[in-house]
Every structure is written in C-alpha cells, then in structure tokens.
C-alpha cells in the first residue's frame, strides 16, 4: 500500500494512508488532527483559487497575466524588496526564491530566523549533536522537554519518541525517562509515569536553574537546600543524575525557551550546559532536537547553505551576496525596505503590531493558498497549490532529515505550485531586464 507524507507540521509523518480518486480525498488514515486539517484545507472556505489585485481598496479577481504584470511592476519599482516566509513551501521553491532575491537585489529570510535558526548555528559551533527521530526510537533513554508541549503542537511526536519500541529499546515506554521543564502543567504532563520527573518551574526563572546546574555541574552535594526557581532539592538531584547518567539523552526545545531576553541568552547558556555535561560524561551524551511549527522550517537554512554557504538570512546588492548584520526584525523596524513578497506565511497576525504595521505600509505581494490577515492588506495575491497534497517537493523534517513529499491530487483550478509561480516571476523579470 502506498503511503504519503503529511505536511501538517514539521514532524512530516511518512506513513499516512490516503484514499482518493485523483480529484478528491475521501479518507485520511493515520494522520493526527493537525494533519487532517491540512488535508481539509484543499476545499476550505477561505481557499484562494484565482489571482487577486487590489482595486479601489478591494480585492478583485483578475487573470494570471494581469496579476503577474502588477506583481512585476511592484518589484521593479522597489529598490530593496523584502522576501519573507518560505517555511510552508518545498525546498525547490526556496531555491527559486533565493534566485529571485538575487535577481531583484532583495533581502530574503525565512520564519526560522525569528524562531529557531540561531540555535542551530550555536549548537553546531559548540559541538552538540543533532539527533534524529529514529535514533531516539532505537536508542534513546532520556527525553527532556524544555518549554515544549508536543502533546498539543506536534501531536505524534510523543507517540514516536516515547512510546514506540525500537531495536535497542524493545520495552518502549518503560525504559525511557521523561523530564518536562515547564512553568505550567501542559497536556504533555499527562503521559508521565512514576519514574518520570515533572519540573514545574517559576516563570522566567529558567536562567537561575541553568546557571545553578552550570556552577554545580555534576556535583550532587552542593545543591542549595532551599531549591532553585521553585524546584525542590530532591527533584534537582534527580535531574542532575538523569542528565549525567543518560546514555542517549535528547533535549527537545520548544517555543518556550526561544523567546529573546534583553539581559541574557537563555538558549546559549542551556547549550553551554549541555556541552559541559557531554564533556564530563564518559559513556553517553545529550543531543538536541528543535520543535518547529511549519513543515519545512528547517529547509531554508539547508538550501541557503548549499547555494551560498550561509545559513539563514541573505541580502543581495548588485546581484551579489553582501555581508549583513541586519535581521528581519531590525530590517522592518528601521523600515529599510520598500516592498515585500510574503510566501506562505501570515506576518500580519504573527508579528507584533509595531512590526506588522510597518509591513502593511509598503506594497505587499502575497503568495499563499488561503485568505489570512495578510491577504486583507496585500496589493497582489497569487494563489498556489498546497505543497504535499497538490504538488510534490522536498522538505526537511524537524530533525534535519530530508523527506520527499508527493503529489496526491490535482490542484483545484490548475493552480501552479510555489516553485512554478516563483520561476515564472523570475523569468518575467529576466525578460524585462534584457529588453
């Protein structure tokens, strides 16, 4: 039986059974609720099926020629276009996006940059291993969730890493220890057993815990008797023993620890702690797994790395890559752009008002398959097929493993895929340049 890959979240479950006749999907087996929603989006009410242009303040349906012409006009009239998104599209589309950015001298960045991009670079520089799902299933014995709640954000992650039985972990759940560090009792706490360690930490006190562990690293005797950050001494002892005794531990970082803080860099200190533990430990190690949201969040860094040797944001001038200290946030804050191309994301509702209002001031081209808050302010809306259902492509899973997505049904209204659409824009701009 042929199995398909779900593009509902970054876990990219590759065991989904889909019953369809090539036009409609009748039944989806094996996918979680989040994946099912993704499949339902094909015929959702807010789906965009034809290109739209804003005329007199209202979006009007137009032909493809007219819409692309308008988009090219916006791009040509701007000197620093901002290309942002690229986490809900395939790697092929990301590649074309980077090519387009080079052609039009733009600044290109993905959702990962305000999410998890920096952690990866830091982890690599400290020599912390990134682990894969299969390795955790087969060898893992300690799973730490820090500021992550997979039971609600990536529903099948706990099923895979904690409950599945693998080659050297035949008993599955019994041999794996789960540690959760979180300020609130999330849904993930409900899978806790007797041997597991739930740590409810006081909000914004993670840094105290990490600094204490770093100072006392591997010496159980010198833990302060009153505990740290609302966690008592015995639990801290157990945490240290787990951290230093694990053979194949993994720490899963969620959105909870990624939030930036003006005084310190939480993730950096946490990674330094892991490095310290790994150095002192003889038989085992602790590796890292990042929990992303969009299905191809990890992909952009890989594509950028392979084509320009830089992971993360890219800025071009005179069709050449230039070194830049600007980030997406600083770029928007300083209003150092004069138009934006948003691909498969919704910055107007995701970013804080101080930033989103600045994006809204400049002309905006949206490439997406649904009406979102961003489509309400966009000048041009170019609809595309849904990647993973109506078009294929490559995507990187949350553990940086490339997975092939397949086309299951034909796109409604013969919509182009993200890759085809970006390619067409690229071609049109190329033609305009030679004239």
């Amino acid at each position, binding site marked *: 039986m042929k199995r398909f890959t779900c593009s509902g979240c970054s876990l990219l479950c590759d065991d989904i059974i889909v019953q369809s006749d090539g036009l409609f999907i009748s039944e989806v087996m094996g996918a979680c609720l989040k994946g099912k929603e993704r499949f339902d989006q094909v015929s959702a009410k807010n789906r965009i099926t034809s290109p739209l242009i804003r005329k007199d303040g209202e979006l009007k349906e137009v032909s493809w020629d007219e819409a692309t012409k308008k988009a090219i006009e916006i791009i040509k009239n701007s000197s620093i276009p901002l290309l942002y998104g690229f986490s809900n599209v395939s790697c092929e589309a990301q590649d074309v996006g980077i090519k387009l950015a080079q052609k039009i001298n733009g600044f290109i960045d993905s959702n990962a940059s305000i999410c998890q991009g920096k952690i990866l670079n830091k982890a690599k520089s400290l020599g912390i291993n990134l682990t894969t799902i299969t390795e955790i*299933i087969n060898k893992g014995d300690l799973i730490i969730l820090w500021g992550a709640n997979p039971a609600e954000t990536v529903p099948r992650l706990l099923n895979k890493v904690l409950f599945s039985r693998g080659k050297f972990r035949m008993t599955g759940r019994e041999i794996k220890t789960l540690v959760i560090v979180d300020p609130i009792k999330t*849904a993930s706490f*409900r899978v806790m057993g007797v041997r597991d360690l739930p740590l409810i930490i006081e909000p914004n006190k993670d840094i105290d815990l990490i600094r204490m562990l770093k100072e006392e690293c591997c010496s159980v005797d010198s833990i302060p008797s009153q505990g740290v950050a609302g966690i008592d001494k015995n639990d801290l002892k157990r945490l240290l023993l787990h951290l230093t005794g694990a053979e194949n531990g993994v720490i899963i970082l969620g959105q909870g620890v990624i939030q930036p803080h003006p005084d310190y860099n939480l993730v950096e200190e946490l990674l330094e702690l892991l490095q310290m533990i790994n150095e002192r430990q003889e038989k085992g190690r602790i590796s890292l797994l990042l929990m992303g949201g969009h299905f191809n969040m990890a992909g952009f860094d890989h594509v950028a790395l392979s084509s320009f040797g830089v992971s993360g944001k890219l800025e071009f001038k005179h069709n050449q890559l230039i070194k830049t200290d600007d980030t997406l946030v600083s770029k928007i804050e300083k209003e150092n752009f004069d138009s934006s191309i948003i691909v498969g994301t919704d910055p107007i509702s995701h970013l804080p008002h101080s930033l989103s209002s600045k994006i809204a001031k400049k002309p905006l081209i949206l490439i997406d398959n649904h009406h979102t808050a961003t489509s309400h302010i966009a000048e041009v809306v170019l609809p595309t097929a849904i990647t993973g259902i109506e078009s294929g492509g490559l995507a990187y899973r949350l553990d940086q493993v490339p997975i092939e997505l397949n086309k299951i049904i034909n796109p409604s209204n013969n919509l182009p895929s993200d890759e085809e659409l970006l390619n067409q824009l690229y071609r049109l701009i190329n033609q305009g340049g030679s004239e």
Partner: protein
Amino acid sequence: MELYKFLPKTNCKKCGKPTCMAFSLDLLQGKVKVDDCPPLLEPKYKKQYDALKELLGSEEGQQKELKINIDDKLCDGCGICVTVCPVNARYCPSSLSGKAPDYPPEKHQLFQVIGGKCELLKIEYCRRLEAGGRERECRVCETYCPREAVKIEYV
C-alpha cells in the same frame, strides 16, 4: 481485590477457573455468581459467603459489559493508544515503531486513527476480555492517553 480476600484462595479449580483470582475478576464483571464456587458453600466458609453476598448486593447476576469510550472532542489522533495497545502490537507489528497500521485493518486490531480521530474498531479481542491472569487488568490505552479521551468502563 476486595472480592478476592473473601474467596477460599485454594485454587482448587472446582469452579472451572484456573485460579481464585480469575474467579474474583469474573465475579466483579458479573460473569459468574458467588454460588458458582463450590467450596464457598461449605459451612466453614459461611462467613465469607455472607460477606461476598453483601458486597455484591443487588449487582449480582447482572452481566456487565466492557466499554472503551473515546471522546471525539478530546482526541487529537496522536495515536499513542494505537502504539501501546498490546493486541495491536501483536497483530500489526508495524505499529510497534509508531507507524500507522495498514488499511483495511487486521481483524484483531483494536484501534486505528481515521480522519484525525482515534476509532475503536472492535472490542472482542481486547485483553480485558480475552487474556487471563494479570493481563486481564490491562489499562494502557486509558493510562497513557495525554488528552484523557480514552475511558474504560463497565456498563
């Protein structure tokens, strides 16, 4: 366990069950009556017999039916019950490693995630009905559900 305390605990097998523990479990589910245990009718167990009769009270004799309820509003299709269910694991080995079982399902299979929600396909092969001894007290699907959507009850 309350009921087991009052049984003779001799494992004489006269009732047709392998152990007194098995008898007590069936007693709890109402499959057998107190009178089905021949030694209990002997005069020396008179006290225990009366205590058992009192404990079971009016419930005695009513066949209780096993039900596994899955709350559709709570379930998010994470598939943990599919993975941990020992019956699933025996008959669909692929579900051991967290993979979704094949479709159409194997005839012994209990759980399958369909359309983003977990569905109970059939209950006949559940360990609480089929297995003997301690395996009969299996409760893994209920214990490990992170949403508390799975509930085992006798109605």
